[in-house]
C-alpha cells in the first residue's frame, strides 16, 4: 500500500493499475481534489453573504450555480469517492482476500468519476442538488442541466458497480476462517451502505430518465399539463436520497470504529450492537423519505406515518454513539490527531442528530424547512460528522500510504480550527433559520440579527478554509520530508494493527 515515495513508480502505473490499493489511492486523490474545489465555492458563497446586498458575485444566477455545483461536488465527488477510497484500501485486507472481487470493474467504477465530475463543473447547472421539476424541466437553462443529469447517471452507475464489488468481496471472498459476525465493523459498514446503494440508487436513475425525456418534450411525467405530477419526482428523489445520507454517514461511522478503540487502547464495547445498528440503519433508512416533503401538501396521516418512520431511525444512530462513548470510558486514551477528529465528529454527530429529531416533528418542520436551519442541520452531518471522520481516517492512513508521519502539531491545529469554524458556521445557521432566513438566497434582508449571524458564519468558514491550507501543506510536506513512521505502531499505542503496508500482493 505504501506509495513508495522513496522508490517512486511512474504515475501511469498507478493510473492503469487495478490493484485495490492503487485504485484506493486514485479515489483518495480525486475526492480530495473535489473537496478543495467544492470548498472554494463555499468560501465564495460565504464571502458574498458577509454583507447584505451584492458583494463579489455579480449576479444571482452565478450564485445559484455556485451553490448547486458546491453541493453536488461535495456529496457525489468528495464524500462518496472518499468512502470508496477507504473501502478499497481496507475491505480486502479486513476480509483477508488478495484484492477486490472484481478488480477491473473496480477500476472502471473509479474511472467513471472524473468524466462525471467534468460534466458537473463544465455545465455549472443552477437548479440545486435536487433538480426539482418543473424548474429543472422547463426553465433551467440549456446544456448545463442536461450535463448535470448525464453526470448523475454516470456517477450513479459508478456507485452501483462499486457497491456490487464491496458486497461480493465481503460475502464471497472473505477468508473461510473469518465468520461474518467477527468481521471488523468497518467492513460491516461497507456491506450495509452498499446494500442501501443497490436498493436506492436505481429509483433516482429512473427519475433522471423521466426528467430528461420531460426536458426533451417527449414525455410529461412531471408536467401537470400532460397529466403528470411534479411531486412524483420528489418522492423518487427522496426515496433515493434519504437513504443516501446513511450511505454517506455509515462508512464514516465505520472509520470511527477503527480509530476509537485503537486510540482508547480498549476493544469495542459491543461488536454485536455495532453490527445490529448498521443493519437496522440500512433498513429503517427507507422508512422516512417523505420527511423532506411535509409542506408539499401531504395529508395529516401521511405526515404522521413519515414522522414515525423518521423517529424509528434514531435509536440505531444513538446505539453507535453509545458504543463509542462506552468504548472510550475507562480507556487509556491517546488524543493523537485521528482520535481528535473522531471524537469531535461524535460530538457534532450528536448535535446534528438532535436537530434531526426536532425536524422530524412536523409542526416544527414548518419553521425550519427550507431555511438556514436545514442547511445547518445537514452540514453538521456532512461536514461535522462525515468529513471529520474521513479527515481523521486520512491522518490514520497517512503513515501506511506514505511510509512517513504527518506533523502532529499541524494536525492538531487543523482539527481545532476546523472544529471551532464548524461550530461557528453551522450552529449559527440553525439560529438564522429560526429567524426565518430562507436557504439558497443570493441576498437577505438587512436585519441586524441576519447580518451578525451571517458574519459569524462567514468568519467561521474562513477559519475552516485556513485550516485546510494547513492540512494541504502538512500532507504534501510530510509525505516527502516527514520523519519516517514506525510502520509496526505509528502512534506507539501497542496492540494489534492491520498491516496494509505489508500486503505483498503483486501489483497487477
Amino acid at each position, binding site marked *: 500500500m505504501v506509495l513508495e515515495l522513496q522508490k517512486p513508480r511512474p504515475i501511469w502505473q498507478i493510473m492503469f493499475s487495478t490493484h485495490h490499493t492503487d485504485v484506493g489511492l486514485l479515489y483518495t486523490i480525486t475526492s480530495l481534489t473535489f473537496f478543495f474545489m467544492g470548498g472554494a465555492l463555499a468560501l465564495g458563497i460565504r464571502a458574498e453573504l458577509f454583507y447584505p446586498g451584492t458583494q463579489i458575485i455579480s449576479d*444571482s*444566477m452565478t450564485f*445559484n450555480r455556485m451553490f448547486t455545483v458546491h453541493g453536488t461536488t461535495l456529496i457525489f465527488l468528495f464524500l462518496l469517492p472518499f468512502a470508496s477510497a477507504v473501502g478499497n484500501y481496507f475491505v480486502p485486507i479486513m476480509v483477508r482476500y488478495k484484492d477486490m472481487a472484481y478488480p477491473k470493474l473496480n477500476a472502471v467504477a473509479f474511472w467513471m468519476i472524473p468524466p462525471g465530475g467534468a460534466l458537473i463543473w463544465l455545465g455549472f447547472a*443552477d*437548479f*440545486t442538488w435536487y433538480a*426539482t421539476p*418543473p*424548474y429543472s424541466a*422547463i*426553465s433551467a437553462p440549456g446544456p448545463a442541466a442536461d450535463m448535470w443529469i448525464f453526470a448523475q447517471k454516470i456517477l450513479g452507475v459508478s456507485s452501483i458497480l462499486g457497491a456490487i464489488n464491496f458486497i461480493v468481496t465481503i460475502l464471497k471472498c472473505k477468508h473461510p476462517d473469518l465468520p461474518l459476525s467477527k468481521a471488523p465493523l468497518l467492513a460491516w459498514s461497507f456491506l450495509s451502505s452498499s446494500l442501501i446503494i443497490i436498493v436506492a440508487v436505481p429509483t433516482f436513475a429512473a427519475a433522471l430518465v423521466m426528467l430528461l425525456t420531460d426536458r426533451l418534450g417527449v414525455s410529461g411525467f412531471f408536467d*401537470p*399539463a400532460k397529466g403528470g*405530477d*411534479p*411531486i412524483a419526482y420528489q418522492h423518487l428523489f427522496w426515496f433515493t436520497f434519504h437513504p443516501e445520507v446513511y450511505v454517506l454517514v455509515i462508512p464514516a461511522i465505520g472509520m470511527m470504529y477503527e480509530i476509537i478503540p485503537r486510540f482508547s487502547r480498549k*476493544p469495542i*464495547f*459491543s*461488536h*454485536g*450492537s455495532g453490527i445490529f445498528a448498521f443493519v437496522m440503519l440500512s433498513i429503517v433508512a427507507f422508512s422516512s423519505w417523505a420527511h423532506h416533503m411535509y*409542506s*408539499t*401538501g401531504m395529508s*395529516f396521516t401521511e*405526515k*404522521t406515518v413519515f*414522522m*414515525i418512520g423518521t*423517529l424509528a431511525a*434514531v*435509536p440505531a444512530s*444513538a*446505539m453507535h454513539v*453509545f*458504543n463509542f462513548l*462506552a468504548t472510550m470510558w475507562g480507556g487509556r486514551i491517546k488524543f493523537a490527531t485521528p482520535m481528535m477528529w473522531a471524537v469531535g465528529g461524535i460530538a457534532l454527530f450528536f448535535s446534528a442528530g438532535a436537530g434531526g*429529531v*426536532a425536524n*422530524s*416533528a*412536523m*409542526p*416544527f418542520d*414548518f*419553521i425550519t*424547512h*427550507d*431555511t438556514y436551519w436545514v442547511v445547518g442541520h445537514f452540514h453538521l452531518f456532512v461536514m461535522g460528522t462525515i468529513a471529520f471522520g474521513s479527515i481523521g481516517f486520512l491522518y490514520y492512513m497517512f503513515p501506511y500510504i506514505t511510509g512517513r508521519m504527518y506533523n502532529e502539531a499541524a494536525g492538531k491545529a487543523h482539527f481545532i480550527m476546523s472544529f471551532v469554524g464548524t461550530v461557528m458556521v453551522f450552529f449559527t445557521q440553525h439560529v438564522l433559520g429560526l*429567524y*426565518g432566513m*430562507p*436557504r*439558497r*438566497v*443570493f*441576498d*437577505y*434582508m438587512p436585519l441586524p440579527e441576519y447580518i451578525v449571524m451571517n458574519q459569524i458564519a462567514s468568519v467561521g468558514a474562513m477559519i475552516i478554509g485556513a485550516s485546510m491550507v494547513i492540512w494541504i501543506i502538512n500532507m504534501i510536506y510530510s509525505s516527502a520530508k516527514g520523519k519516517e513512521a514506525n510502520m509496526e505502531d505509528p502512534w506507539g499505542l501497542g496492540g494489534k494493527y492491520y498491516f496494509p503496508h505489508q500486503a505483498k500482493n503483486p501489483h497487477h
Partner: protein
Amino acid sequence: MSGHSNWPEWVYIGVVICLLAYVGAEAWNVERLVDHAPAEAEIIKVTGQQWFWTFEHADGTKEIGELHVKKGQPYKFEITAKDVNHAFNIHDYVVLQDAVVGRVNTVWFAPEQAGEYTIQCREYCGLLHYNMRATLYVEEN
C-alpha cells in the same frame, strides 16, 4: 457478543425511545390542531409565479405583492403556482405551504397582532428567488 453485560445500553436505548415517543406524540397533537381550518375561515387564493405573489380575496379583489387582512379573522389560503414550484411562507405566523403547479394546497392562520409582516418564497425557483417577497398587512377591525 463480548462477555460483559449490556444492561447500560438497554437502559439508554429505553430512554432514547421514550424521548422519541414524547416528541412524536407532542408533534402529532399540535399538528392535529393546526391541520383543521375553522369553518368560518375566509378563503384567499394565492398564486406564486416567477417571481411574485398574487392574492385573490373571496370578493374577487386582487392584490399583487401585498396582502391586507383583518386582525382576529381566520383565513384559509388556497395555494398554487403557475410556472415552477414555490413555497408560501409567513415566518412570523409559522405558515408554510408549497405552491405546486397543478395542485391546490391549503393552510390557514388567524393573525392576532396588527402590523406588517414579510411573506417570502421559501422554495428555490430560479433567478430572483431570493427576492420573491410580499408584505402582509394585518389591520385592526
